[in-house]
């Protein structure tokens, strides 16, 4: 009798389950950035992040991204205290997410990663495991953890939309992901289309990465943050001589290339290091002052763009951020002010904050040095 009852209950439960959540039986199949096909039985409940900062990508499509995190490295906490604190305020549970590394590949602990029993590991290169980390991937997979690769850094402009789509499928938020991808593509397309029709002359751009840190002149070529220069209709002078993704240009080369535009990149990681300070929680005046200091350095102050007063600062962390369309918009406006007179990156940021981000981006993400500031003897008001 008891056995019959159990069977009957089981039948009802199965029927009820299939009625109330029909998606359960349908496995989710995603093709990740590395071209691997990954199948999961149901939307991920316990995600292991390879980089803590991808919390921002999750938050674009999930109203409570912290609730689905099982483990992550401490990079967001260590390198972007401001953002971490804001998320922590909104999602106090963030403190309980297990730490599996300090935010570098060497400190990523496979043992801790396995101990948090994730169902899916989402890796994104950068500070964490990448496609090359075959040891980590194979160990996770043999423990039954699915591994999915996304990318916002190595080919930011090509992979951002697809990465969001993948994340949307993984966490069962396809509609939200679709909305963001549409928003993202619309903004990208606006710049691309207009450049394609107008075909303006590309100005020579010198992008000074981590401006003010160490000796001059670290510069990206066509990948990572340098990818945005081409997309915004500029010509990157580093791409003419650099074969590696990143390298140190000879200051003499920069001087003799007579760049039309100087773009320094900076972030909170340059605080106290004499560099350009920008990003979350940084006010505009501080960014302007540090940018003015950077371009006042001997040699750099004589670069054509600096002498002609076309000096700009960009948040470096756009190099690994799904909101990278903002960087393209800002650069395009700097490169071709007339062509993009109606484009307002501040408005785009506002729209991003209002429509998608549960914790808004607030701070200085781009800055223009007004000519009065860069004169070395001008007293700042």
């Amino acid at each position, binding site marked *: 009798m008891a056995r019959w009852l159990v069977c009957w209950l089981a039948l009802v439960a199965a029927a009820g389950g299939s009625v109330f959540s029909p998606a359960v039986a349908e496995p989710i199949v995603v093709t990740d950035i590395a071209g691997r096909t990954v199948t999961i039985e149901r939307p991920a409940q316990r995600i292991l992040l390879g980089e803590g900062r991808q919390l921002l990508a999750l938050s674009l499509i999930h109203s409570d991204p912290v609730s689905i995190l099982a483990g992550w490295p401490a990079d967001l906490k260590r*390198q972007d205290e401001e953002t971490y604190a804001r998320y922590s305020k909104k999602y106090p549970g963030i403190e309980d997410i297990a730490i599996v590394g300090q935010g570098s590949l060497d*400190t990523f602990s496979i043992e801790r990663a396995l101990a948090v029993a994730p169902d899916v590991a989402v890796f994104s290169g950068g500070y964490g495991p990448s496609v090359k980390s075959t040891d980590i991937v194979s160990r996770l997979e043999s423990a039954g953890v699915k591994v999915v690769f996304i990318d916002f850094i190595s080919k930011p402009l090509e992979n951002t939309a697809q990465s969001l789509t993948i994340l949307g499928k993984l966490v069962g938020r396809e509609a939200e992901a679709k909305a963001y991808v549409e928003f993202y593509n619309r903004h990208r397309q606006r710049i691309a289309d207009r450049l394609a029709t107008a075909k303006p002359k590309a100005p020579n751009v010198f992008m000074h990465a981590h401006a003010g840190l*160490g000796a001059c002149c670290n510069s990206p070529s066509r990948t990572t943050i340098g990818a945005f220069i081409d997309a915004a209709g500029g010509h990157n002078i580093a791409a003419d001589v650099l074969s590696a993704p990143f390298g*140190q240009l*000879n*200051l003499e080369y920069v*001087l*003799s290339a007579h760049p039309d535009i100087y773009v320094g990149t900076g972030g909170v990681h340059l605080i106290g290091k004499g560099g350009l300070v920008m990003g979350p929680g940084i006010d505009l005046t501080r960014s302007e002052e540090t940018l003015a200091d950077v371009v006042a350095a001997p040699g750099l102050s*004589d670069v054509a763009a600096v002498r002609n007063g076309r000096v700009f600062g960009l948040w470096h962390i756009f190099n690994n951020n799904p909101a990278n369309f903002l960087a393209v918009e800002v650069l395009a406006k700097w490169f071709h002010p007339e062509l993009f007179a109606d484009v307002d990156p501040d408005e785009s940021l506002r729209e991003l904050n209002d429509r998608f981000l549960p914790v808004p981006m607030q701070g200085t993400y781009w800055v223009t040095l007004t000519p009065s500031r860069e004169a070395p003897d001008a007293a700042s008001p």
Partner: protein
Amino acid sequence: MLLRPESGAAGALESYAALVRRRIVFVGAIAVLVIVAFIIDLATGPSALGVSDVLRGLYAPAEAERATAVIIWEVRLPQALIALLVGAALSLAGAEMQTLLNNPMASPFTLGMSSAATFGAALAIVLGIGIPGIPASWIVPVNAFLFAFGSVLLLSALSRLRGTGGDSIVLFGIALFFTFNALVALTQFMASEQALQQLVFWTMGSLTRASLDKAALVALVLAVVVPFSMMSAWKLTALRLGEDRARSIGVNVSRLRLGGLLRASLLTGVAVAFVGTIAFIGLVGPHLARLMIGEDHRFFLPASALCGALILSLASCASKIIMPGVVLPIGLVTSLIGVPFFLALVLNRREQI
């Protein structure tokens, strides 16, 4: 044969005078080569400024075009000068250390000074630890200098605990080398990805951090140290005959060692502080000089300094030529060129150094 057995005392004196003349000519010849290398270095760069443009820009900066003047005075001249000065400083430090410790492997790098400097730099870069009140751009060089200097004080303190034998100093130095390397690895382990990159670049050495005031500072240290080195030259020569013999003719070996190590640490500290770690100059410079000049330290010390200056100057040219427009870290270039060169020297060595 330099000494003809059939000639008497006068003949010996005469051939000694000839030997001294020959050594002076050698030192003079290296000095000329250094000047030539310096001018080539000044004339090398990604923009089309030749020797004549550079010399004119140096001679009459007011008449030169502004961009040209900036390239010459802000970029090429500081780097070329610091290449000469740092090369000379590291090589002189290596020469004194090799003699003082009676060990051909002794150099600022094998005895832990540069590892200590790297650790100092790592503390500043990774953990932001430095002397309070120092401007941001000086924290790293000041830390590097203090640690290089401190490591030698530690070395001499340790060696005084257990006599002053050259071998025990070498062993202590190697222990320091491994200790500081481990500490550097520890900071690397804790570093964020960006700080790690910066540290790696720092350790590869670069002349692009040069400025005229930094070059002046290295020149000042050299100007202070070189007279003391030259005053110790005959004692160092005597030490080459062996520690006991040197003692028997009245050389206070432990004082000589302490003074020499302090000089070496000053030279290394100031050099490493401004350009990062540049390997092999301190090792190869002295060996090259010794092969040409021999052991008489009145000539060997200046020749070592000049050889170091020559090598680093040429390496600076190479670092600009190999990939135009891009700066190759100078430490890479000296190591890549230095290693085969060093091996060739060792393989061709006819007698025990």
